[in-house]
């Protein structure tokens, strides 16, 4: 029965909190209003009843909370993590943003190939699609598991392939037309940045003002620079969770930028982000035989 997944999650969390093996569980609770699932922070086994399994299509990536200073005094913390969240945590470990000792996860593994992404589905409908790991695990344990091998690359992000393909068929001028119209809508609310677990910079480049490389005004100029640089800074780091695009109140197709860069990095450097803690992010690395056919 569907509710069993959520119940199992609650049991795992409750027992870990009860024995004190984790001090905080970060999971999802049903959204109070609106269609978004809200993050929920459970620090005692009394409150585990709020935990639920949210449809990834309406939820933010919980890894974004692992770097929050407000909870830095709590250790260890456990994050309820589906594969994209796990990949984000791998990225954070890789870049030293969270200590492995402090981090535990309750892994959620997709049971079926297709987990609903539709925001119209309620969280409960979705719960049956997930298998909850039997206990709180370290990332090391998770990354050594056969589930990780099987599902590590699973994503809930809407597939941007169609749009990428469509754009690739266009001329430069048409692509320019498309993107400048999209970027023009950007309101610079930075919801994309805030909801991205890898956008953890304490001072975003958009806020560096001496000099101001990226104009802060929501004008075509500033918006173009912001969206291009945001995407570039995630090249080789984006773990394909789709949180940025889901967050954007203006509906910018950020996923297409990310997907395109993911392809580029995979093709050119044979790299996929979020899979190995010990790998070097491709833009912090080079090979002597990197492609250079475009360099004269």
């Amino acid at each position, binding site marked *: 029965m569907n509710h069993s997944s959520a119940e199992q999650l609650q049991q795992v969390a409750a027992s870990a909190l009860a024995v004190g093996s984790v001090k905080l569980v970060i999971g999802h609770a049903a959204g109070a209003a609106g269609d978004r699932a809200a993050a929920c922070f459970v620090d005692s086994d009394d409150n585990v009843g709020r935990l639920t399994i949210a449809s990834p299509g309406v939820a933010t990536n919980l890894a974004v*909370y692992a770097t929050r200073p407000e909870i830095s005094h709590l250790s260890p913390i456990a994050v309820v993590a589906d594969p994209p969240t796990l990949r984000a945590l791998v990225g954070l470990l890789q870049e030293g943003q969270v200590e492995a000792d402090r981090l535990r996860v309750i892994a959620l593994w997709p049971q079926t190939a297709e987990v609903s992404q539709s925001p119209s589905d309620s969280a409960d409908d979705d719960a049956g699609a997930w298998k909850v790991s039997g206990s709180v695990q370290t990332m090391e344990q998770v990354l050594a598991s056969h589930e990780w091998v099987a599902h590590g690359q699973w994503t809930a992000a809407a597939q941007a392939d169609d749009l990428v393909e469509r754009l690739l068929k266009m001329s430069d001028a048409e692509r320019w037309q498309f993107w400048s119209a999209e970027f023009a809508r950007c309101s610079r609310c930075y*919801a994309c940045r805030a909801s991205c677990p890898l956008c953890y910079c304490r001072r975003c480049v958009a806020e560096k003002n001496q000099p101001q490389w990226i104009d802060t005004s929501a004008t075509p100029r500033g918006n173009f620079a912001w969206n291009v640089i945001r995407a570039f800074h995630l090249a080789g780091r984006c773990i394909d969770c789709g949180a940025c695009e889901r967050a954007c109140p203006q509906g910018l*197709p950020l996923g297409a930028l990310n997907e395109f860069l993911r392809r580029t990095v995979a093709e050119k450097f044979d790299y996929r982000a979020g899979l190995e803690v010990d790998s070097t992010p491709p833009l912090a690395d080079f090979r002597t035989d990197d492609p250079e056919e475009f360099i004269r």
Partner: protein
Amino acid sequence: MTPLTLKIDRLGDLLAKMAAAGFRIVAPVASAESDTSATAPRPRQAVRFAVVGPQDYARVDLTATPAAEGIKRFFLPQSEAVVRMRQNEGQSAQVSDISPDAPPTIIFGARPCDAAALPVLDRVFSWDSDDRSWSHRRQQTLVITIACQSSDAACFCTSIGGAPDSTAGSDALLVPQDDGTMQVRLVGERGEKLRQFFDADDAGSAAPREDATTGDSGKAGQVTVVPPRFDISGVRSWIENNFDDKLWDQAALACLGCGACTYGCPTCHCFDLVDEGTEQSSLRRRNWDSCQFRNFTEHASGHNPRPWQTQRYRQRIAHKFAYFPERFGTTLCTGCGRCVRVCPAGVSLLEIVGRIAAKGKIEEGRADG
């Protein structure tokens, strides 16, 4: 006075008439590019307000519960040049005024909760001194709202003293009728300027009259019912007395510190002034800003009065429900619920103010008892 009506199939004619009278028309339109976004169902951005021309009339969509983006930016543009600075080589620096670019405009099809924000913001933009740009745009712009036929779980206008058919801030209110027509209620002197565009309601003279100022018009039109979500009466005093309450920490923990709520909010009006340009020519721009951003209050020295999200989140709620009411006598919120809908983290102002209201009720009770 003859009641006015609008037949929805004559909408194009109406807009054309207004345009012919020299008005720029702003209306909610379904985005032509909604299919570009990769995520298939994306109700939040489907309908947006935009300047429309005849070719767009067919796309005007009056059905969406508060559109993804409100009408605030037509009064307080997201980015607006206010001063131009010029440094000609060999001369000393000069500045010149840039006047607000605001042709006579009719905003058609706004929601009452968006319009209700206008008189609220009038207070801040005209207290002590008049903000030229705001005032000018207010003068130039007539707002025609449409009473809501539907609402969702995020709507809470009625808890703030508004209503799905409130006329606050509107120059005219359209009330959808059972027969598919819209009853037109003109509001005040400014509303009278719109009379010329509407037809007299010959057929529907039997329609009952209501007092346009009350929200109780459900019988006549297809106006939705927004149930009360909380009792606001104890909110302000609870906030004033519980600055350090744990609730703020709990509420803010999930908040990611983006500006989606403030930019969507019809009443949030904080802005930034920035210079952009080259050595020789630059513009000083007034841009939306958000109290939720970490650097909003940060000094150049690094000192920050509100370094934590808890403090910033509290500031937003307290400003809306305590500080602004104290200063200007009205809540800085219209209950549109847009902040709830857009929050990427699922943080609900409605829920949190609801909790505050409940606590406030208890404290009030205690004080009384």
